[in-house]
Each structure stands twice: as structure tokens, then as C-alpha cells.
């Protein structure tokens, strides 16, 4: 592990042939990438498959890497693109079109608080609420949480403008907050 070195420097070092730099990068970000994929696919095995593809793409792209953006933005851009490729080639191709998000009626789709077994399972309820979010909103939220990406970086990683990314994130947070408040009210 190389705790002090920024991601971008590690990636440059790996592009120069330093395998240890890759190990450090991988250890830092493997969980976030896997969870992002897991949340977006809802399938652990598929997420692991895509996860490997993402890192192999990063390995292939090491020579052309230029630190023009934050490393995590670049990493999650790769992950997002791989995910979109998968959706296009699968039955869930409709999810590629995040523009069709039924943003306003999401609340009706969220699990009811009484559907959760215990209040201690808030985290699990949150995960369920995240899973119930439209894919684009979910993606924006997960990228914010897992990748520590800003609105601009989410927009970059997902290939949309800032306002769209901001809107998606706002909707997602609104719904999730509501989910978290419900158990308290009940």
C-alpha cells in the first residue's frame, strides 16, 4: 500500500510499469467499483464479471492515461461505460435511457416502512430504497457515495451535463431521505 501517493500519481507509475502502484490503486477502489456495479445490476455474479472487465480495461488503457481529471472520475467512467455496454446487449437495454426516468412518481415505488422488519435494519432499508430508485438516480447517488464524486464529476462519468446530474442526485436524495424518515414516524 502506498497511502501517501495520490491516485493519479499511482496510475502514472503503473503506466510506467510499476505493478505495485496498481496494487495500491486496486486496493483503494476495488470495493467502491464492485458496489457501484452491484447496485446498478442487482446481481452479484454479473457485478463481479463486469468488475473484472472494468479493471482489465483500465490495465489496457494505462499507457494512454493522462491525469486530466480525478482518477476516480476516470475509473467510474470506465465502469459506467462497461455497464451501458452490458445493458445495451442485454434484456435490460431500456435502462440505458436514463432520460426516461419517472422521477416524480418514484415515491410510490419505494418500499413502505412497514415492509421492513426492524428499525435496526435501516441500512438494509436504505439499500432497498436505493435498489428501488430509477437507475440514473441510483447511479448518481452511488457515485456520490462510493466514488466521492461531485456533481460535476458525476456528470462527467455518466456523460451528461451538470444540471442533469444534479437533478438526478437531488431526486434520489429526496426519496431516500423520505425512506429514512418513515420508520422514525412509524
Amino acid at each position, binding site marked *: 500500500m502506498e497511502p501517501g501517493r495520490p491516485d493519479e500519481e499511482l496510475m502514472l*507509475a*503503473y503506466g*510506467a*510499469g*510499476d*505493478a*505495485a502502484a*496498481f*496494487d495500491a490503486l*486496486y486496493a483503494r477502489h*476495488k*470495493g467502491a467499483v*464492485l*458496489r457501484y456495479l*452491484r447496485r446498478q445490476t442487482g446481481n*452479484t455474479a454479473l457485478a*463481479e464479471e463486469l*468488475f*473484472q472487465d472494468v*479493471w*482489465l480495461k483500465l*490495465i*489496457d488503457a*494505462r499507457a494512454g492515461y493522462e491525469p486530466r481529471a480525478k482518477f476516480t472520475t476516470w475509473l467510474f467512467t470506465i465502469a459506467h461505460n462497461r455497464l451501458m455496454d452490458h445493458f445495451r446487449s442485454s434484456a435490460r437495454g431500456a435502462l440505458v435511457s436514463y432520460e426516461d426516468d419517472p422521477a416524480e412518481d418514484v415515491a410510490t415505488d419505494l418500499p413502505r416502512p412497514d415492509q421492513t422488519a426492524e428499525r435496526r435494519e*435501516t*441500512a*438494509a432499508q*436504505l*439499500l432497498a430504497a436505493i435498489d428501488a430508485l430509477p437507475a440514473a438516480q441510483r447511479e448518481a447517488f452511488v457515485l*456520490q*457515495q462510493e466514488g466521492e464524486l*461531485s*456533481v*460535476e464529476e458525476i456528470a462527467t462519468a455518466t456523460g451528461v451535463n451538470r444540471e442533469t446530474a*444534479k437533478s438526478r*442526485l*437531488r431526486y434520489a*436524495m429526496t426519496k*431516500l*431521505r423520505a425512506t*429514512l424518515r418513515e420508520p422514525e414516524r412509524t
Partner: protein
Amino acid sequence: MTDPDLRDPNLDRAYRETPRDEPPSEVDERIRAAARRAVGTRPQSLEQQAADERRRSWTSRWRLPLSVAATVVIAATLTVMVQEEDRRPRDDSGRGAARMDTAPLKKAQPAAPAASSSDAAGDRLNQLPAAAPAQPSAPAPAPTAPPVQPSGRAVPKSAAEPVVPSPSIPPPQPKREERAFEAQRPAAAEPAPPAPAELEMRWQSTAPAAAPPPAAPAPPPAAAPAPPPALQSAPAPRPAAKATQEIAPAGAASGSLQRDRNLGDRPERASREASAVRSPEAWVEYIRSLRAQGRETEATAELAELRRAYPDFQLPADLAR
């Protein structure tokens, strides 16, 4: 830049409490192994990579020019070698053909003292394998075209046209090697037929102890001093010398060529060497063959020549008479 409304501490806390999924260890190993394979097992610093890049760029920059230069040098060397090889036999053939052309002229003159350049030519032909002696049975090949110079121009008739041998002495049939050469020559460039004296020299040198030719004996060895400068410089068809080269071993051919050049330059030395080469025993055999054919005059002349050349030689009883 980040809107505070877009960050909720409660949500962040709640999300952090969700299970932290991690990839299985086998997936980790697979990906790390792929990463190591991609860059090689040995870690490489940026400085090392830059040095490698410089080295690669130098070799790639000079590879093409060096290849071209090497090709040009090899091609030039080969060209020079081929030209040199071409020039050498041409020089030699010039002398050989001049000698062949002048030999019949010399035949009309009285026999010179034993030392002669034709004997020197015999020395050259000594290098030939012991082939069958000349068998002059066919009529003289009539030259159909003047000899052609190496440059392709016809030699003036006065210099290059062969003198038709005397009817009493049929021209010898070309030897086997010469016939083979004749077949290779183009008809238009057919050179003069070999001079009788030349063939005679060949007979003497190749079969000194053999029986004389059954059909028609070869003419006596004619003294052939160095040809006149005009003839000496006249170029002759190149194949004449080429044929000689073909039938002689490679090493002997080059040696004889060198000797031939020396002889052409120094006639006296050539005569000395020639008389030293002709052995009295071979001469005796030749005189006997002349007598056996009833050519007494020539035999007597040859005998006198032998006595002059070898005053101390003890003549056999049949010739001493």
C-alpha cells in the same frame, strides 16, 4: 461548487452502514496477475523506461539507413568483382587469338631456332589434360564471318581473317574441347580456326609419348615468335581464350594466363622457357612419326632443330644415321 443540499450527513452515515461488499480473493488475484503480466514482472522506473525508449528510437532510426548502406556496398563490391572478372579473360583472349591468327603466317617462314613463343604456348597447354591427339580428317572450317571484337565490331580482314592453310597440310580438326566450344559460339562471331602450329604444340605437349595421329600427322612445330605489334594489339574473339580456360583446370588456367602475359611481354624469355619444356625424347618421337609417314624433309628439319637445341643429346641409332 458542490451544492450543500446535495449532501446529507444522515444519508451518508446510513449508507456507510450498509454492507461493504468486496470482490472475492480469486477475482483479486486474477486482476492483479493481469496487471503484472501487462507490465512484466520486473518493476520498471520511469527513468528506465525513458532509457529504453531512447535506445529503441536510436535503433529504429538507423535501421533503414544502415540496411540500405549495407546493400549498396555489397552491390558495388559485386559489380566491381564481376567487371574485374570480365576484363581479365578478355585481355588474355586478345593475346591468344593474335597468336592463333599469326601462326599460319609464321608457318611460311623458315623454322626459327628451337626457342619460340609457340612453345611457350605449348607450355600453357601443358596444363590441359591428356586428351586425344588431334585427328585432322575434316576439311578446314571455312570462316563465314570475320571475327568479332569483344566490343562487337568486326576485326579488319587484313588483321583478323585467318590464312587458309596449305592444301598439303590439312588443318587439324578441332579437339574435343574445341568442338564443344564451337557449338557454344554464335555463328556470326565465329573466330579464325586454330592455327596448325598451335594445334601441333598442343599435340606435343599433351601426348608426347603417344603414337602419331593415324590419318594425317600434325604439322611440325613452327617457330612462332611474338606477333607483330599490330596483331598483338588486335583484339580477338573472346571465346577463343574462354575455351582454353574451360578445358584447363581452374588453378592451371590462371597460372598459364599469368605466364602468357609474361611471355607476350618478353619473347626471349618465352623462347627459353619453351625450349626447356620440349623434351628431346618427345621430339625424337615426333621425328620418327614424320619419317613413318614419309615426310622426310620435315623430319630432317626437325632433326636439325633438335640437334641445335640439344647438342649434347645422344640421338637414337635410327635417327643418328
